[in-house]
């Protein structure tokens, strides 16, 4: 399963004790995000460190672990879908990068933004968990029936 990761999910990792982290490290989930998200996240390092009170070395380890699970996609790869993304988002103008990446790959956005569910591009943490669990059950039953 493949989804694009919204910035709100990336930042919620810092308060997650369970489901988000479990999904990030799930090998059956392929995560994509705009390359700019990584750059912007790191640009805000000082503020993140100040608010999280995490030691810098541990923050670096966490970033390294999380970023290794995400494929960061440069703008050139989804630039052509930006206008379509803007039209879809209408007045909600700050998610173009994420939606354009989704449209370019025909996949959904893992998000907490309610509007994105209304326009049919969002998928929730719960929905991803359910989908992965369903896929895993399907695989097990197929595998067992061939034994």
């Amino acid at each position, binding site marked *: 399963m493949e989804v694009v990761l919204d910035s*709100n999910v990336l930042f919620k990792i810092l308060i997650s004790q369970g489901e988000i982290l479990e999904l990030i*490290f799930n090998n059956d989930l392929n995560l994509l995000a705009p390359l700019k998200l990584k750059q*912007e996240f790191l640009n805000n390092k000082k503020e993140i460190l100040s608010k999280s009170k995490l030691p810098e070395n541990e923050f670096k*380890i*966490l970033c390294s672990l999380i970023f290794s699970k995400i494929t960061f996609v440069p*703008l050139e790869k989804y630039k052509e879908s930006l206008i379509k993304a803007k039209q879809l988002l209408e007045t909600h103008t700050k998610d173009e990068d994420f939606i354009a990446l989704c449209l370019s790959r025909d996949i959904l956005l893992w998000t907490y933004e309610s509007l994105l569910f209304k326009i049919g591009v969002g998928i929730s943490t719960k929905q991803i968990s359910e989908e992965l669990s369903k896929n895993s059950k399907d695989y097990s039953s197929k595998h067992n029936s061939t034994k």
Partner: protein
Amino acid sequence: MQLFLFMVEIIIKADVPSEFKERFELVLAKLMRSLIKELELSVAKEIVSKSKFTEEDANELSNKVKLSMHSQLKAEGLI
């Protein structure tokens, strides 16, 4: 900012019957992937458990990042 982790190599030696070598390697590779995943997840959970970050912090910074990304697209004349 560059992120570096110092990696160390661990060598595991095992005696297995030669006819099982390939099967053993396949199973070991699968086990290692699972082991590494569990290890990484436990390290991430341990670090995050110390975080004082709040829901409001996450929403605030996420919005800040999105607005900056949007501004860059506008400045480049792409939207």
